[in-house]
């Protein structure tokens, strides 16, 4: 953070100019002067360096000509020489491999990797290590972390209620993109406008999630039009920060005060992103439309496999169907002769109550029960106060198919409840079948009055007559997916509400004959059945006591319609043919599995263009209530113009950004990569390349790198390779008082980088060295240890919203890389935030690096770090069995990639000795320490020995050296 400008080393402007001019003269003399790429100053150009075309500087000449390893180094060395300084010697091999491994994979090297590097005497040994690291899948995980900060990635919506969202498929796409070294220009275009590419792939649509990572608000009482503006403004700000490092947000309310952007520029960019068909206040039940279903590779494989099986079964069914004609005719004939069964009751009911007498528990009758002759046997007489209650039955969600059927004998036509599994609350969550003015009503309710489905049969039931009532819902959650049958005849339905979007689950029992708080049914009930599937019209008729199949079979074959013939044939196959029944059941089962798989497939939020496009207006003072002049999509006038005929959509914007002649994109990108490896960018204000940002420490180097990046096809791995194999990066970070005095910020890079590791790397490294790290690429967020109550003390109603109560993972998910830790914006993981991670509410280009007592407390006391120290101790004891000095050496090798000095040995040995003495006096405490964490302690080890080593391991995990790269 640029909070301490006074101490920043700045060359006096005059000297800097002389250096640059001299270098240029030199290059002229050598006949290497590069022609400027293209000078395209647009209107309003300020002459500010960042808006000038990227120059193609020649690496300057240097005196110490044998030092540079690649051209990058000549820019650094020439500046050092101009200052009368020299570079540091190369870091020793141990420190070098540790630095590169941490930077490229976010994890330290293993002792074996270190040994192999030491043993490799070839001049390209280091380059080989770098290639290995770049090829590791850990590379993508490490690099993605920076991108998630930029993209304000989180697992919750943010703002008020901050409930769960699923954007992890997008996060995994980022990891994968780094690992397959997708060029940065494609990475850019797909994230900003993948959906608009010709022949778009699902992966390219998925990539557009970048601009759906913005927060979403659905606080009760909020106004959609206010928040729609905020979402789009966030996209403008994030996009311009990430690709141009420009502070466009300053131009939302008025023209930018310092940089060449007008308010019109802001709203022209706004127009690109203002075209997502989103509602403004959705997100209540998870992801908000527009959505993309994004099966994982495993799910896709399973889906394809089930589809193949289904196709095979269907083929077998067709064959059997053709073969079975004769057998069906024989069956028909037998039926005609009064032998065999025709219609069979549908099998597989979840529950069935004959109601001849009191049903078995857990079903129970609430209120006075009277048994009278029913439709079949007895029936239950209800007087408005009595109900049949079945706990646990019928726990159907909106997305579940179900059927409820029963015989009813109503004695009045008042509004009364026949069947309900519904809360007795204002929101009335659940489902119910009612009678109102003799007419049947089915409702599925998330929130009464606004978020529900309600249909009504147009024909009334008859009073004082037995009728069979059957309702089905197909799991679509739509009115069109509901059926109501009376006596096996499907009824015309009127849709009263068709706006269900949310859970209908309740903890109530399923109640027949009444609901708590509603008026109960008066009349008789009999033969109640509940199915977890949608019954067919034939099934409905059978349950209503008809014999539709027998009737069809009685019609001579020649007189049947094709439809009747098909129904009969299929019924025969399904119910009376052994092979047909088997296949039918198999097909049904496969369809169920496919449906369940389909439901379990994660979705992700994506960008889609609304049709027709939404109009964008300049908002006075940036306020959504004050729309002014209408504007069309367009890029800022002060930067290069869009090519003639560019379409007014995001694709044109994305392509404009990655045009090699764009002055900002490549500079901004390479600067951030530099920042990753050296701790600070060449432009320290990596978020602001405007006139108020800092100037680059090495402007020519920035341009050279940007040019190389573009010319090399925006190859990110190549850029990283170039940086980490440079002599500049390979310098020792040893600091003398003099060199510190001269350049405390190390802006001139007369020494190698030494930066405190990010939160995630600290935790992941501890897990790796402890042998606990579970490496599994991708997947939903996981929940490592967290002190109790942290979410609950700030969160909203957990009954109504997700991600309000923290439940730690069990087993492997406790030990995954921190990239996968569930990120709740209102309560980001405390160990991460304490080590300077952002809250991910807005775009962040760089984290501060503080040094606080709370960080010490995390590393010493947080359960995960304590457990890691114990497992590290176990590992040392198991893998280095030969005496304390060797064990200490091994611990140093694991943690620091080097052995201890004699002085260090002595200190650690002393700590161990004293600690052992303390635990020998207090074995109970030793055992207590070993019980921290889910991973059980090795019971074969002496608890005193293990606990003492755990303290030593914890001490070594806290070493300042280990916290730095």
């Amino acid at each position, binding site marked *: 953070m640029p909070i301490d400008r006074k101490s920043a080393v700045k060359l006096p402007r005059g000297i800097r100019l002389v250096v640059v001019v001299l270098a240029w003269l030199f290059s002229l003399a050598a006949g290497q002067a590069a022609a400027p790429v293209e000078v395209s100053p647009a209107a309003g150009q300020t002459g500010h360096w960042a808006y000038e075309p990227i120059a193609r500087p020649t690496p300057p000449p240097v005196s110490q000509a044998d030092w540079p390893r690649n051209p990058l180094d000549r820019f650094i060395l020439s500046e050092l020489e101009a200052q009368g300084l020299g570079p540091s010697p190369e870091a020793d091999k141990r420190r070098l491999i540790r630095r590169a491994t941490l930077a490229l994979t976010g994890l330290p090297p293993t002792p074996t990797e270190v040994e192999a590097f030491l043993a490799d005497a070839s001049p390209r040994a280091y380059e080989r290590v770098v290639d290995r690291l770049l090829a590791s899948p850990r590379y993508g995980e490490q690099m993605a972390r920076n991108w998630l900060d930029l993209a304000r990635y989180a697992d919750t919506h943010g703002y008020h209620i901050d409930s769960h969202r699923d954007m992890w498929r997008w996060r995994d796409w980022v990891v994968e993109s780094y690992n397959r070294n997708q060029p940065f220009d494609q990475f850019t275009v797909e994230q900003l406008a993948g959906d608009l590419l010709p022949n778009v792939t699902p992966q390219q649509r998925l990539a557009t999630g970048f601009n759906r990572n913005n927060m979403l608000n659905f606080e009760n009482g909020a106004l959609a039009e206010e928040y729609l503006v905020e979402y789009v403004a966030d996209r403008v700000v994030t996009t311009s920060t990430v690709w141009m490092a420009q502070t466009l947000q300053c131009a939302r309310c008025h023209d930018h005060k310092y940089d060449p952007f007008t308010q019109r520029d802001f709203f022209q960019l706004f127009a690109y992103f203002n075209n997502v068909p989103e509602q403004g206040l959705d997100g209540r039940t998870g992801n908000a439309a527009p959505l993309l279903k994004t099966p994982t590779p495993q799910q896709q494989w399973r889906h394809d496999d089930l589809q193949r099986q289904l196709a095979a079964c269907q083929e077998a069914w067709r064959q059997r169907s053709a073969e079975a004609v004769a057998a069906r005719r024989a069956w028909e004939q037998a039926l005609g002769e009064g032998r065999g069964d025709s219609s069979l009751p549908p099998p597989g009911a979840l529950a069935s109550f004959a109601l001849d007498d009191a049903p078995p528990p857990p079903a129970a009758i609430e209120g006075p029960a009277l048994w009278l002759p029913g439709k079949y046997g007895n029936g239950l007489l209800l007087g408005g106060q009595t109900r049949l209650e079945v706990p646990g039955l019928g726990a159907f969600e909106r997305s579940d198919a179900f059927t409820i059927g029963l015989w009813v004998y109503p004695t009045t036509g008042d509004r009364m409840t026949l069947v309900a599994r519904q809360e007795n609350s204002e929101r009335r969550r659940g489902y119910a079948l009612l009678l109102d003015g003799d007419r049947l009503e089915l409702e599925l309710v998330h929130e009464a009055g606004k978020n529900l489905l309600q249909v009504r049969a147009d024909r009334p039931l008859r009073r004082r007559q037995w009728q069979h009532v059957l309702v089905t819902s197909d799991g679509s959650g739509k009115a069109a997916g509901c059926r109501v049958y009376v006596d096996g005849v499907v009824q015309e339905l009127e849709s009263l509400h068709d706006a269900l979007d949310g859970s209908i689950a309740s903890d109530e029992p399923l109640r027949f004959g009444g609901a708590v708080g509603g008026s109960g049914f008066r009349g008789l009930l009999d033969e109640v059945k509940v199915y977890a599937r949608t019954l067919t019209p034939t099934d409905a008729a059978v349950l209503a006591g008809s014999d539709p199949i027998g009737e069809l079979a009685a019609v001579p074959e020649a007189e049947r319609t094709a439809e009747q013939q098909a129904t009969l044939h299929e019924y025969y196959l399904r119910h009376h043919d052994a092979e047909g029944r088997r296949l039918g059941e198999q097909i049904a089962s496969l369809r169920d599995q496919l449906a369940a798989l389909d439901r379990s497939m994660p979705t992700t939020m994506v960008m889609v263009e609304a049709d027709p496009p939404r109009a964008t207006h300049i908002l006075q003072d940036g306020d959504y209530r004050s729309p002014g002049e209408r504007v069309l999509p367009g890029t800022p006038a002060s930067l290069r113009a869009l090519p003639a005929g560019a379409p007014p959509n995001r694709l044109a914007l994305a392509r404009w950004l990655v045009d090699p002649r764009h002055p900002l994109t490549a500079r901004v990108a390479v600067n951030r990569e530099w920042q990753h490896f050296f701790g600070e960018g060449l432009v320290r204000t990596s978020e602001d390349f405007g006139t108020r940002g800092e100037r680059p420490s090495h402007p020519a180097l920035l341009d050279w790198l940007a040019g190389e990046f573009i010319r090399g096809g925006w190859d990110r791995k190549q850029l990283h390779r170039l940086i980490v194999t440079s002599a500049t990066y390979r310098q020792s970070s040893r600091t003398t008082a003099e060199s510190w005095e001269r350049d405390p910020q190390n802006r001139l890079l007369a020494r190698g980088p030494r930066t405190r590791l990010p939160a995630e790397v600290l935790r992941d490294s501890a897990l790796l060295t402890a042998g606990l790290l579970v490496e599994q690429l991708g997947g939903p967020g996981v929940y490592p240890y967290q002190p109790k109550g942290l979410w609950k003390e*700030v969160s*909203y109603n957990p009954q109504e919203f997700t991600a309000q109560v923290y439940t730690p993972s069990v087993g492997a998910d406790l030990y995954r890389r921190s990239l996968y830790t569930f990120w709740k914006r209102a*309560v980001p993981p405390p160990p991460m935030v304490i080590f300077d991670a952002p809250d991910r509410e807005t775009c962040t280009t760089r984290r501060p690096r503080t040094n606080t007592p709370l960080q010490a407390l995390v590393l010493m006391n947080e359960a995960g770090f304590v457990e890691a120290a114990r497992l590290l101790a176990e590992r040392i004891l198991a893998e280095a069995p030969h005496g304390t000095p060797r064990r200490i050496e091994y611990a140093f090798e694991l943690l620091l990639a080097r052995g201890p000095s004699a002085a260090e040995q002595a200190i650690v040995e002393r700590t161990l000795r004293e600690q052992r003495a303390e635990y020998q006096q207090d074995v109970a405490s030793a055992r207590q320490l070993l019980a921290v964490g889910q991973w059980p302690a090795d019971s074969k080890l002496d608890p005193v020995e293990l606990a003492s080593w755990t*303290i030593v391991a914890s001490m070594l995990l806290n070493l300042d050296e280990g916290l730095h790269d």
Partner: protein
Amino acid sequence: MLGFLDRGRPAVSRRHFLARGTNGLGLVALASLLNPRLLGGERAENRGSRGLAGLPHHAPRARRVIFLFQSGGPSQVDLFDPKPEVRKRHGEELPESVRMGQRLTSMTSDQKSKPLTASPFRFRRHGASGAELSELLPYTAQVADDLCLVRTVHTEAINHDPGITFFQTGSQQPGRPSMGAWVSYGLGSEVEDLPAFVVFLSGGVPGDQPLFGRLWGPGFLPSQHQAVKFRGQGDPVLYLSNPPGVSESTRRRMLDGLAALNRLQHDEWGDPETLARIQQYELAFRMQRTLPRVMDLSDEPAETFELYGEDAKQPGTYAANCLLARRLAERGVRFIQLYHRDWDHHTNLPSRIRGKCQQTDQASAALVHDLKRRGLLQDTLVVWAGEFGRTVYCQGDLERDNYGRDHHPRCFTVWLAGGGVRAGQTVGRTDDFSYNIVEDPVHVHDLQATLLHCLGIDHERLTYRFQGRDFRLTDIAGKVVEKLLL
């Protein structure tokens, strides 16, 4: 009701606490052991406990702030702003000439009838100043002469998230530093083994309006300026306790070994950051010893619990947090922020507001009284506020003895005490419906400017450059409200 105004001074003086609290080894002493260049500012982020050069801008009246935030929007109509006219016109429609088309939340914007709803709670004048307070606040009434009531605070937001965010960060949208973070950044802390900015939470049961980390977050300021949350369950500060089985002597031994190893490291590599790390570990160790003592109320006499109420014995309650706020103020913590949830009374307001007052009235008043008798009130600014007020009209159907009120941003009441504030006055006048401001509007930015002013900070000069712009708490507005000040 206890007349606690009559009580004598407590036996323990503030000086005693300060002496004990810092344990003889302050920042300066420790710092002198270290490389002096470290404190010269090369790595500015290490200077967590030092303020900015040039601050305070002027002589402060307050050295610290205790902010009692009543989250959800307490009803000024039922607590602070009596309206006889509404009583006369109870049940009549809110005149359109009063509302003037101003925007409403979507909870009542479509509600056809907006009946004026008189408060059933009686108001009386209290103290020499004659401050008018509702019967729901009997304890606050006893300290009325120590308060400055501001009836004309107004805000720009109409819903909780933007409302609280605006009150705490000066902007409705996320991304800015919180008030306490600004103060920590500007002034640093007075003591070294306690944080400069502390937050307490209370009142949360499932269904209460949520809170979020950004309300006490650092925004774009260096992250050490975020609040440290003091908790009523588990460790008082996250990760403060040693793991089970690790004694203080073990911890000391491990830290001695660690410091020795780190010093060797520094000798070889020369990075002053390493020395700073040693210092932070020592601070952590001292926090481990100090904080449990600060949080342990067993040294409080019985009289304390009579004053703050029995709730104060229960960790995590508002009353306990008020008492802890006093203990932290005694020890020099700069910015102490309490959040109490569930003032969002859209329905069943009469019974719910009574419950909230029972949880908060006694302890809020006790805090003011307790600070005063200990001589701390004069340089401690106490603020009692919610994010907005509530509508004079009823949300939902007005029943005989029940009603609710929607959010109301156009006027609400806040009280201030101590630290340079002119006590014993009621500032500002609202119209007959507690709907619009008639006299002396105080915008949230004005209140923030005034709060900073009391701390000796010119709100226009406490800035931080981020993304090319010099940001400040009060954005581009805010003026110090002289009327509130001594």
